[in-house]
């Protein structure tokens, strides 16, 4: 029974963050927060205001904890392919760690808010930091994918070198084309990372670079598949 459970846990896809306990708690509180906001907008009594203030505190607390948990899961994922770009990846891990500490403190202080001006200050402080949180999270996602693809490219380059020196592959006409594709992939991955250092803040609104980075990453993936496909075809032909 235990073995079956272990095997199933390996086969079944891992739950995404959207299904995590912390995010679920935030969504639950947020739903109540919306309802209480509507009630308060209708009646605007002292009791509805008080109820809204209490649920706002809870929602802020669970929001910060959900974000902290997400950054933590991201931080845990990054070392998986860190060897491709150790320094840049470590820098992001450290940044995520600092943000986690900040979010934890913020989550605790949310519960101690006791006036509207306090809440206003809290919201202002959070919105400024949230720009940094988004920048760090999306940069980490891009770096993680770049690292993964770089390692695949390294494997393909190694395979091409092995084929180059193999006595069973006499014709070496394919080599310039493979090397050109390899350079193209490197360029796409660099461009994807460059997007993450472009200016992200514009009038306190986050200017998301993720879609542009992702476009380069998708192009890199297509080129990786093409390079793999071509190398495989050359290997198969060499056998016949």
């Amino acid at each position: 029974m235990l073995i079956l459970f272990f095997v199933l846990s390996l086969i079944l896809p891992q739950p995404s963050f959207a299904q995590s306990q912390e995010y679920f708690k935030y969504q639950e509180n947020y739903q109540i927060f919306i309802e209480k906001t509507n009630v308060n907008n209708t009646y605007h009594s002292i009791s509805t205001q008080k109820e809204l203030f209490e649920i706002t505190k809870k929602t802020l607390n669970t929001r910060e904890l959900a974000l902290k948990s997400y950054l933590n899961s991201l931080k845990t994922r990054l070392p998986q392919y860190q060897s491709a770009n150790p320094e840049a990846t470590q820098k992001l891990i450290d940044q995520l760690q600092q943000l986690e500490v900040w979010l934890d403190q913020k989550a605790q202080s949310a519960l101690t808010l006791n006036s509207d001006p306090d809440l206003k200050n809290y919201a202002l402080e959070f919105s400024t930091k949230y720009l940094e949180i988004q920048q760090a999270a999306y940069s980490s996602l891009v770096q993680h994918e770049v690292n993964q693809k770089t390692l695949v490219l390294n494997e393909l380059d190694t395979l091409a070198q092995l084929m180059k020196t193999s006595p069973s592959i006499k014709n070496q006409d394919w080599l310039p084309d493979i090397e050109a594709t390899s350079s193209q992939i490197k360029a796409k991955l660099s461009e994807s990372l460059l997007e993450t250092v472009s200016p992200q803040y514009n009038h306190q609104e986050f200017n998301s670079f993720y879609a542009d980075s992702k476009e380069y990453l998708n192009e890199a993936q297509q080129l990786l598949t093409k390079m793999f496909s071509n190398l495989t075809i050359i290997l198969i032909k060499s056998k016949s």
Partner: protein
Amino acid sequence: MIQLSFLKTIDKKYLIIIGLFIFFTLVLVLSTSIQNQKTQTNLPTPTPTPVLATQKQPMTNDLNQVPTEFYETVNKINQNLKITVQDDFPQIDSKIGF
């Protein structure tokens, strides 16, 4: 020999109902299967889609044709190529409190 003596104990009325139910079920099953056969024979023959040489992706079977000395490396790369990185940044309301 199948013992059918127990049927004598059942009311004729019920026997007729059961018989009719079995009969109509058989008719339904047979007609569905005939209909399916007809539909399949009427289907147009699919025209083969032309595949460009440059678009060809290595099939799992193709990998088996790779020389033995390279098979392990190629297979490993093939697995690593399939890895997709999760991008699940949570949707939150950052304007609460304003």
